[in-house]
């Protein structure tokens, strides 16, 4: 068994070992986090379904008004 092959073996051993250690830790950490969150951060119940907020970097206040106008017009049309 030459040097290259033994390098490969080492890489395999350390690699798989590390992947398992890392993901095991992740399982533990994630589980702990989920338990803490479930206990201490109750989710708001029956949150009204809100439209996707699209915060603009500047001065786009006008767009919402336009949108509202368009939707209002559409709703009126359908109600008739």
């Amino acid at each position, binding site marked *: *068994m*030459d040097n*290259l*092959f033994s*390098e*490969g*073996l080492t*890489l*395999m051993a*350390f*690699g*798989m070992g*590390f*992947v*398992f250690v*890392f*993901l*095991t*830790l*992740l*399982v533990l*950490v*994630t*589980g702990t*986090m*989920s338990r803490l*969150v*479930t206990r201490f*951060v109750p*989710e708001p119940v029956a949150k009204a379904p809100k439209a*996707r*907020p*699209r*915060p603009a970097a500047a001065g786009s206040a006008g767009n919402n008004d336009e949108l509202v106008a368009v939707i209002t017009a559409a709703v009126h049309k359908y109600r008739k």
Partner: protein
Amino acid sequence: MDKLLDLWLASGISNISVGQFSMMIIGLGLLYLAIRKNFEPLLLVPIGFGGILANIPEAGLAFSAVENAIHFAKPEVLQQLAVTLGVSGADVHELTHAYHVSNVSTHAAASMVAQDAGYSNGMLYNFYLIAIASGAAPLIIFMGVGAMTDFGPLLANPRTLFLGAAAQFGIFATVLGAVALSSFGILDFSIQDAAAIGIIGGADGPTAIYVASLLAPQLLGAIAVAAYSYMALVPLIQPPIMRALTTAAERKISMSQLRHVSKTEKILFPLLLLILVAMLLPDAAPLLGMFCFGNLMRECGVVDRLSDTAQNALINIVTIFLGLSVGSKLSADKFLDVQTLGILVLGIVAFGIGTACGVIMAKFMNKLQGGNAINPLIGSAGVSAVPMAARVSNKLGLEANPQNFLLMHAMGPNVAGVIGSAVAAGVMIKFVG
């Protein structure tokens, strides 16, 4: 008449080599697979087209200014390059070799000589420099993938992370296969090459390209083509292995419904993953950092416009240039090599072993807990190939039990596989990079 002769002598048809012709056929073949057979078309269409462009004779689209200067071989230019590169004589092969092994400052000097002589970098070569050599494109795509990934199923059942870990055995077994081929004198792969080839088994395009660009850039074309082709072949490769390793009873196992996962958990998960990476494996930080960043943008709910752009305009733009850049590595002299055959064979072995290990791990976990909590069919999804592998698990589950929807259960190991291969990539970069 001189000009007519010039035009003929400079035309593709009078210059095309057998290799270039073959590569054009291969490029067309990739396009056929992508368009007609729907093999990962988002990547294989640009890669296949880039491969054709890279092999247009005399156009030099995939070559640097220096390579183009050497190709056209004007004596006075070769002479100047020889001086710059510190080579006696102006033999073309010697110059090319000296150029490729030269240090950064000599490389830059040679490039200036070639540009002064009127040669310039080919279009695809520039794309490659900017998109891949800089590392940017795979990382930006990984950010976009993060922004598209829902960790809900994983968070609902975190133990599926073990399935994603087990499936990475395909990667390391392939590394071993590659060094074995090398040790037996069949092929000639360095340990870096072997590591880059192994990552094909991760079934994750950007990770494979990122690792190959760092460890074995000369194999990048073959590795990327193998990675994306086999990801497309997942529905053919996996089912026989999955059937062979499971009993009909095991395939019928129905899993309990996943619990609801809160928004807060989804926001905290990418941050926890990032901190774990930071503490344990800094070499995986670029890949997993960008991935977690994309996922945080998705889940935090306050930067939807950035998340939308990361999932659409930005990832699409980068995909176009990444694909063309990968195609630039499909030049005849690099691709038409027995090494490529080796890579293709090793790649499919990697997929197979990864699939098998995922399934076996699932059975092992059932044994360990003395129950039937996990349908072993979802183990195969641990190779990643999101979301194809999860769909395969679902399909085989439905075959065995028409009421048994495994899709969401399989998404857990599926995204775990993405994390697993990125961690494996970090280990490779750490040890052989």
